[in-house]
């Protein structure tokens, strides 16, 4: 609140009735308002965009050797080269670095036996073999859950059925070990056909529940039948690919690499289904969007049967290998906990991506093996991790990046939408359309002025105007009147003398030549001063309402 004294510039000109200084009504200085408005309130954030990618230098005149996979036009790495507009140099960006991570990770896994400490060697090799088998199973399962988007929980049932079938055949008919995966693949094919049929008709959750039931059915059936060794807790004694004559370390090493090979095969299968035509079709027709996919000419039913058949063959193959690896199979493969652990692996890694399946498997197997001594506690821990991942992450561990970016963008746009100011300023949509950009700034200024003048109005001020509508006023009143005088012609208030010196009336100008002013109110004022004050009150009211 400043400006308690208002110096009259007219005083020195000897105007009649002018006083040198008039005490003004306390009010906020317009300078303060101006300063407040013009200072930047935007936080000084670092300008520009973060570089998400490392820029490799271009190699002079040489282009990078572009390796292509044999027989395809596919390159090993997706590299984008752009000329930097400032330096005019070629810069290269690796858009998708996942192949590098895959190669490094698989190499590390392959070379891991060389650096394993001898005391844990056996445990680690066994754990690695287990991990590889489960990763292969999960990759096949991921084709159904992730690519096709069908929540089938019967994958372990397929594996188990193939393993039980081949073990039984191997024990009773003496099938050699190399035939087990092949026969298993056949069993898987039959099983896949069986579970594919309901998938065409049923909704996701009906199907999920049905497959849990199938799993339980397999468990109960094998548990009750004597042929499958209900007394021994499983079926053991199948032929194995591991020569029994070798010493322990060599056996473990062979098993490790054999399982690694199966996992590689699983990865290749995943790549060839998910990344190609069948995968595209399946991803076009997820749950609840089948109708749209069908309308665009996609035969999703056939694609679903295909993916079931292919992944079931894969699962059956792994089942046969499982039997040949462990020399048999136990009932635990059908148990609900196995399904849950498998699902935990997929969920923790992130559904719908190969790296999710593999890394999730690694995490769960690691926890399982490391904490083996704690008994049920380790399962509780895995369950907690699974719960946490489901509650907080949209797409598992590998979805964190995308989720974080989505969150950041949402926050950004919310903040941006909050920043626009109020009042005369134009809306974003209007501002882009208007030709006269000056109008934007004029409105902004006008709004600031109106906001300031609203703070100035007080009963004393109105009283001051009532006493003396014309002549010298205090500073705030003077500012207010100046603003009113500058108003545009249309809808500006004017006074009409109905009868000079006796009756006056307030009208509003039309702002157009030849169009008569319209009458605003019926009230008749008896003197000019009263009419002036009436106009003033109307304008004040309009200002307060704007």
């Amino acid at each position, binding site marked *: 609140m400043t400006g308690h004294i208002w110096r009259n510039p007219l005083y020195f000109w000897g105007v009649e009735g002018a006083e040198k200084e008039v005490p003004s009504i306390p009010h906020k200085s317009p300078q303060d308002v101006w300063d407040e408005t013009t200072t930047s309130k935007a936080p000084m954030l670092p300008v520009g965009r973060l570089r998400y990618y490392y820029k490799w230098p271009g190699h002079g005149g040489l282009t990078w050797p572009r390796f292509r996979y044999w027989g395809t036009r596919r390159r090993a790495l997706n590299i984008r080269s752009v000329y930097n507009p400032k330096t005019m140099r070629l810069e290269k960006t690796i858009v998708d670095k996942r192949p590098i991570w895959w190669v490094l990770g698989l190499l590390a896994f392959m070379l891991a036996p060389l650096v394993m400490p001898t005391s844990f060697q056996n445990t680690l090799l066994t754990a690695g073999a287990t991990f590889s088998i489960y990763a292969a199973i999960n990759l096949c399962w991921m084709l159904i859950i992730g690519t096709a988007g069908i*929540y089938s929980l019967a994958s372990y049932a397929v594996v188990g059925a193939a393993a039980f079938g081949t073990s039984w055949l191997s024990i009773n008919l003496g099938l050699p070990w190399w035939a087990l995966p092949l026969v298993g693949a056949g069993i898987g094919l039959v099983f896949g056909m069986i579970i594919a*049929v*309901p998938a065409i*008709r*049923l*909704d*996701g*959750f*009906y199907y*999920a*529940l*049905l497959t*849990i*039931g*199938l799993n*339980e*059915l397999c468990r*109960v*059936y094998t548990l*009750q*039948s004597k042929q499958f060794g209900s007394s021994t807790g499983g079926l053991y004694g199948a032929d194995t690919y591991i020569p029994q004559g070798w010493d322990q370390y060599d056996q473990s090493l062979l098993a490790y690499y054999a399982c690694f090979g199966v996992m590689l095969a699983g990865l290749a299968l995943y790549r060839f289904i998910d990344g190609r035509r069948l995968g595209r079709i399946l991803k076009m027709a997820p749950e609840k969007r089948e109708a749209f996919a069908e309308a665009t000419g996609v035969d999703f039913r056939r694609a679903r049967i295909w993916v079931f058949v292919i992944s079931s063959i894969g699962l059956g193959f792994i089942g046969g290998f499982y039997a040949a690896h462990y020399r048999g199979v136990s009932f635990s493969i059908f148990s*609900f*906990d196995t399904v*849950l*652990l498998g*699902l*935990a692996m997929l*969920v923790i890694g992130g559904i719908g991506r190969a790296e999710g399946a593999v890394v999730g498997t690694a995490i769960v197997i690691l926890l399982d093996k490391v904490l083996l001594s704690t*008994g*049920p*506690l380790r*399962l*509780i821990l*895995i*369950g*907690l991790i*699974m*719960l946490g991942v*489901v*509650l907080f992450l*949209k797409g598992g561990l590998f979805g964190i990046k995308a989720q974080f970016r989505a969150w950041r963008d949402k926050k950004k746009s919310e903040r941006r939408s909050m920043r626009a100011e109020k009042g005369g300023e134009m809306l974003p949509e209007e501002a882009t359309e208007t030709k006269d950009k000056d109008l934007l700034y004029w409105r902004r200024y006008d709004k600031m002025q109106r906001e300031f003048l609203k703070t100035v109005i007080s009963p004393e001020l109105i009283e001051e105007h009532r006493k003396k509508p014309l002549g010298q006023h205090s500073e705030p009143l003077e500012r207010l009147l100046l603003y009113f005088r500058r108003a545009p012609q249309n809808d500006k208030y004017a006074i009409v003398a109905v009868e000079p010196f006796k009756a006056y009336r307030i009208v509003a100008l039309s702002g157009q030549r030849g169009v008569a002013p319209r009458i605003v109110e019926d009230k008749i004022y008896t003197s000019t001063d009263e009419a002036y004050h009436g106009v003033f009150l109307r304008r004040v009211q309009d200002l307060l309402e704007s």
Partner: protein
Amino acid sequence: MDVGFILTNAIVLACIYGTLAIGLSITWSSVGLINLGYGFIFALSGYGAWLASQYISTNGVVVLTAGVLTGALGGLLVCALAFIPIHDKPNFTVRGLIATLAISLIGTQALLYVFGPRSKNLPDIFGFWKINLAGIVLTSDKIGNVVVSIVVVTAVLLWMRSSRRGLEIRAMMMNPHAASIVGIGVRKTGFYVMAITGGLAGLAAVLLSQTYYISPFGGLAPMIKGVSIALCGGLGSVRGAVIAAIILGLNEALTARLLGGQYVLITQFILIILILLVRPRGIAGILDRAREA
């Protein structure tokens, strides 16, 4: 193995599994959650009833009430963990399903950790007496099971039909968006629903423990049966669930009589698959065609 014995057995089991199925059905249709933690709630309430019988009293009413209350508590737990945090997030149905599976994993392992793998049995809450009805011997537990489950389920259904909370739950079943507009709190109603269905699971657990034992993993098989009945009847349809319970109970009895016990699950699943292939939404789809649209 005479027909009457098998038939009464089937009816008893149908009643109990029907109770479970109706609970599952209500959960799915009102809060949109496939509660696969139901087996855990089942086992939990069995243990709750067992604790009550050990430390409080072996009176049937006390044991039954304890079971139902623990079940309701389990339902609230599942609701707080799997429904409240994610019910308005994307992919809720899938994430909810997986969350309930995780709860089931944690819960059963915790039960195993606390109570050990040895199974427990409850006292006979209906006493020992039998009635000979036209050559069929009805023992007290069978009659008690049937009567209690039918009475409780009917009471719950009547309550849902007539009371205000029931109206809220049914309104939320049909259109959750409109429900929030008329002033139904989705979260609060979710707690009600889960408590009720949990209570139903607890009831089924106590009743079933008259025949079977209580063990940490004992909830799985009843849940599968309940799920298959709910599936067969059509998720969300109580009438369908009742009919499906009767059909599947009959099937169980007939298969056990004609083919042998180990084929029960197989024929049951063939039946369910057939029904679902004809009507992808179960018997409810046959009952009223309007729902399918």
